[in-house]
Structure formats: structure tokens, C-alpha cells
């Protein structure tokens, strides 16, 4: 084997996967074709635009605090996993008898709109967060507080929600201020009398991000392989 064959061999061995598994799919996904609603299946027309509500700047705190090492954001199709059937992870199972539609769906490429990086996640030590805002909304309603407060309390003291959880408390994202001027104070005891615990801006933007994690807006049936096969 002389040096020339060696280099050519390497260039081919590295180049082919680089082009076909990296560069081309990357280019293809960068300019996704817009998806249209289908008049018959969706009973409406027009181009689908994802309308995500929440503060996507919070993604940077999600990243920096390593939430993705324990939490995923991916609802896989059934060939790859079963989470679509897990309660409250992918949406609500339908009830055809009472006309309730099945809102469960897999992740689609538009779900990460507006983010820099899709935090698919490394492990599922904790639950998938694709639809955490929906779960939070329910849980908050049961406690009679706002969803935002629920998230803030969850971040400050996860133990209150799940005893001895390994989900780390983000106490450093909160500060103590004079109780009189405090807005959005948490119902926990501050270190001193007359003080109250309030979120710093990072906690607010992280919660804003978590609030955006819900996949319950109407999407074209074409984007949803399950809906497509059901029809």
C-alpha cells in the first residue's frame, strides 16, 4: 500500500459518509418544505406555521444546567419506543364514542422551531419533557396555582413534588428580597424574617421555556404519520 492509495482510500472512506450522512441531510433539513393543511382531512387550508408560545431564550439555561442529560424531548414512533402510550406524555388518547379526538402524536421537525439546538437528550432518568407544560397545567390547576408558579416551585424545591427526587433544585436561580416589594414570591420560608423568595431572571426565562414545551396545537394530518394511517 503506497501513500497515495492510502490517502485516496481514506478520502473515499471518510468522504462518502460525510456527504451522504452529514452534508446532504443537513442541507435538506435546513430548508424544510412548508407543510399545507389538507382540505379534506384537516377541514381547513393554508400553510402550517408552528406557533410556539413561551420564551425560547430560556433554552440556554436548559442547556447550561445539563437538563438534557436526564430529560429527553422526543416522542418516538412506535417502531422505536412506546412513550406514545404513556399517560400524558404525548397527548390525550381519544374517546371516539364521545367525539373526543386522539391528540397523541409523535415529534415532528417543526416542534423545535426557534431553537438553536434540539435537545433530544441523553438519558431518561427523568420523564420526557415534550409535553411537560400540559402536565404542569393540570397539576397546577389541582393545586389552585398558576402554571408558572408550579414550575417555579418545582425548580426551587423538586422535593415538594416528588420526595427525594434526583431532579436537582435550582435554588441559585432565586433570590431573597424585602417581602413588601416582592412580586411572584414563593411560599417558602426565607432565611430571615420579613424577606421573601423570588425568582431571578434566569428562573423566569427557564420557566418561560418549559411553558413552551407543549405539542397540542393543530397540525396538518400530513405531518402526523399516525393520523395519516388512521384515515
Amino acid at each position, binding site marked *: *500500500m503506497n*501513500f497515495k492509495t*492510502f490517502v485516496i*482510500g*481514506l478520502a473515499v*472512506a*471518510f468522504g462518502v*459518509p*460525510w456527504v451522504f*450522512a*452529514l452534508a446532504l*441531510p*443537513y442541507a*435538506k*433539513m*435546513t430548508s424544510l418544505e412548508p407543510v399545507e393543511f389538507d382540505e379534506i382531512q384537516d377541514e381547513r387550508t393554508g400553510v402550517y406555521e408552528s406557533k410556539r408560545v413561551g420564551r425560547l431564550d430560556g433554552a440556554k*439555561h*436548559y*442547556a*447550561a*444546567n*445539563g*437538563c*438534557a*442529560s*436526564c430529560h429527553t424531548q422526543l416522542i*418516538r*414512533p412506535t*417502531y*422505536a*419506543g*412506546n*412513550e*406514545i*402510550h*404513556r*399517560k400524558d406524555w404525548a397527548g390525550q388518547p381519544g374517546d371516539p364514542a364521545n367525539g373526543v379526538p386522539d391528540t397523541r402524536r*409523535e*415529534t*415532528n*421537525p417543526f416542534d*423545535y422551531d426557534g431553537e*438553536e*439546538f*434540539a*435537545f*433530544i*437528550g*441523553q*438519558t*431518561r*432518568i427523568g*420523564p420526557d419533557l415534550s409535553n411537560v407544560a400540559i402536565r404542569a397545567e393540570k397539576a397546577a390547576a389541582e393545586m389552585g396555582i398558576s402554571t408558572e408558579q408550579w414550575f417555579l416551585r418545582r425548580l426551587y424545591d423538586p422535593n415538594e413534588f416528588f420526595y427525594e*427526587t*434526583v431532579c*436537582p*433544585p*435550582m*435554588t*441559585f436561580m432565586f433570590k431573597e428580597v424585602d417581602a413588601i416589594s416582592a412580586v411572584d414570591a414563593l411560599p417558602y420560608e426565607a432565611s430571615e424574617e420579613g424577606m421573601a423568595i423570588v425568582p431571578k431572571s434566569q428562573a423566569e426565562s427557564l420557566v418561560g421555556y418549559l411553558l413552551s414545551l407543549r405539542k397540542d396545537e393543530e397540525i396538518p394530518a400530513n405531518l402526523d404519520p399516525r393520523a395519516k394511517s388512521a384515515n
Partner: protein
Amino acid sequence: MSSNVNNSDPKDAKLRADIDRSLRHPVMFFFTSGALWLFVAVLLGFLGSLKNHAPGVLADCSWFTTGRVQLAHTNILIYGWACQAAFGAIIWLMSRLTRKECKNAVLILVAGHIWNIAITVGLLGILWGGSTGISWMGFPTFVWPVLLLSYFLFAAGSIVQFMVREPGHVYISQWYLVAALIAFPWIFGSAHLFVFVFDGHPLMKAAVSEWYHGALTYLFFTPVGVACAYYLAPKVTGRPVYSYHLAMFGFWALMVIGPWAGMQKLLGAPIPKFLPFAGAAATILFLIPALTVAVNVLKTIFHEDNEMDVNQSPSLRFTIGGMVGMLLMGFCGLLLFTSGALRATQFSLTGYGYDILAIYGFFSLCAFGIIYFIVPRVTLREWLSKRFIKWHFYLSLYAIALIVIISMGGGYMQGIAQNAPDKPWTDAATRTEAYAVGTTLAWGFIALANFVFLCHLLLMWARLGRRSTHPTLIGGEHHAGSPHGPEGDLEKIQAANA
């Protein structure tokens, strides 16, 4: 011990001594700073694992919140230790195999310092809260161009050495080294550009980051580990490599399979569907080069003539360990990444266990092997204590065995529980807990092992090693032949036995 090799040519001996002297500072710099970072990474790994079952530890300290510790741990292990150990080995092996003195020691040292400063800043950046959150690209974004620059500064010398070598046969290890030298900037550069610079789809960025993870494992750490093994096995035993054709086949199999691996992490994500499957297939097919290389190296080592060396040489011990680690990687890949098992292992502890097996159980053991070989040569002192070496070896072995059983077996069980949608989620979490405790224990072992290693290496670095012509062997008696096997050139060993 075959002694039909002429190793008394004084000119050769002088050349080798000159090469070793010219490399003393750069090589020792990479090895000692690598070992220091390894110790830091292991402590972070211990802490991160501890927090997986004892969340109260350092809970209120922002710098040590679980997610940050885990990111810091992985990145320090990769860039602080593994890369630097690889760099040290590459520089030394390249010089020895091309028979050229190192002329740019100062430049390499400068590059090494830049690298270490960048890592330090990166570590502080992660703990302070500036991480990108991407598992193997976790340093704040301004760090990676600096790392790449530092790489070019020191690698250029090795490439030049190879280009101006005297014409003639290129040894197997050299193929692997040149491939690794080319692969690193290619993988590192293109992955970081795709993720941090180009304006792509967030999902493809995630996919590229996982490809990077796979490619760095299979196309950088694996070739360097294998190069060390192919160097040490014939060198220490004085026997030629078992089969040249197998070596050739193993090399090309790795180069063809390696660049496809990684994206299996995104199975089920809405990206082109063949990508995760290609990734899973490559991870499984890795068994082919792994088996080829391991058989070839082990066949070279285990020969009735070599019994003495196998029992006595620390370098061989570690190399054998590394080869077994690589075989385990191959078989675990076969069991855990087929599409049936992948749904369970995709988001369980298995992936982490596989990484540790690759980085510690395979690559690091090979690197320790070459470090135990190189350091006495460049410092002109022998290792102080065979007991230290033994502790390092056995503690590492126990830890790896534990991690493999826990993360692979436990990870699989955990994955099954995650995929049982009717059972409560806490089932999966409860099943993880015992394994998390086991992982912490394993990190404890690795921490001890590497504390011993670090102290030993620091003493050698301070040139407090034994002044002796007898090498430190782990199996008792010194043997009559030359230290660490005959000092001939590999080429001559190959030729003499051809």
C-alpha cells in the same frame, strides 16, 4: 524470548536515545497534564454519579449542580485526559517509527499549554453556567476554535515527520496514526462548524453532535489505541505481528465502518430515517475490526515463547486489558444496538456505559500501556514500584467490569421499564437506583486507581524514578534479556522472523 534480533547497533541505539531526549518535555507534558485531568474527571464522575442517587450532596451550590457536573465530567474526560494521552502517544510513536528526532519541541509545548489553558477555561465555563449543554461539545463556544488551533500547532510537526520519512515500509501503527491525525481535524472541525456556525435545523445539529461523538470514538481514540497495541505487542515480545493481512483488513474495515456511527441516538426522531439505522449498523459492525485487531494483537502476544513477557511487562498487561475492552465493545454493540434492543437502550444508562467502556476500558488501558513503556525511556528512570502498577491495573479492571455489568445490563433493564407504558414511570427510576450506586462505586475504584497512577507519574516527571537498568516488572524476577524486550527496530523484528 526470541533473541535473534540484532539490537546492538550503536548508531541505532544513539538515534533512539536522541529521539527520546528530544521528546522528553512535550511527551511528559501531555502525559502528566492528561493524568491530572483524568483525576479531575474521575472525581467529577464520582460526584455526578453520587448525585444520581444521593441528590442532597452539594445540592444548593450552583457550580456543582448535577447537570453541570455531568457535563464537566464528560468533557474533561475526553479533552483533558483522552485527547492529551492520545497526543502524547502520537508524537512519540510518530518520531520513533519515522526515526526522526523531534525538531519542534518548543512549538508542541506551546500548543500543549494553549490546550490546557483552553480546557481550564472551558471547565470553569461549564461550572459557572456557560455550557452549550451538548454532551461531547459542552465547553462554551469560544473554546473550540482555540482547541483546534492548538491541535494544528502540534500535529503539523508529526505530519511533516511522516512526509519526510525515509522511503520504505510503513508500519501498521503508522497507518493508524496518520489516519487519526487526519481524522481529528476533519471530525472536530466539520462537526463544530455544523453545530455552532452554520444555520441548520436544530435536529440536524443534534444529529451531527451525535455523529461527532461516534466518529471521535471510532476514528480518533480507536485508531490511536490500536496503534499503541500494534506497537507494543511485537516490540515487547520480540515477535512479528501475527498476520499482516489481518492487520490490513482490520484497518480498512474500521475506516469504512467508523464514519457512519453515532446517529443511532436519534432513532425515531424526525430526521431522514436511514441515518439512525446506519448509525446502529455501524456500531454493530464495529465488531468486525475489533475482532480482527484483537485476534491479531493477542495472537502476537500469546505465544509459548512469550510467557515471561506476558506475566512481567506492565505495558503488555495493559495492552491485553485494552484489547479485551475493545472486544467487549464489539460484543456489547452487537447485543445492545440491534433495532430491537435499541428502543430500550437508546435513553437508558447503556450509552454512558458504552462510552466509559470505549474511553476507559479500551482506549485508556492501551494508553496506560504505552505510557508505562514510554516514560522510563524519556526520563531515563525506571518506574518506582511494581505494586503501584499492579494496583492501578487491578482497580481499573474491577471498575470496568462493574461499569459494564451495571450500565449494559442495568441500562437494558431500565430501558425495558421505560418502555412499559402501563407501569408507573417511577418503576424505571427505582430500577436505576441500585445501578447508580454501583456506578458510583466503580468511579470510586477508578479514582483510587488513578490517584496511584498520578502520584507515580508525577514522581517520574520530577525524575525521582529509579536509576537502574532493570525495568520495573510486575511479575517478580528480572529476566536476563534487555529491559522491556529487545531494543531492535520493529522492522528488524518483522524482517528477522519473516
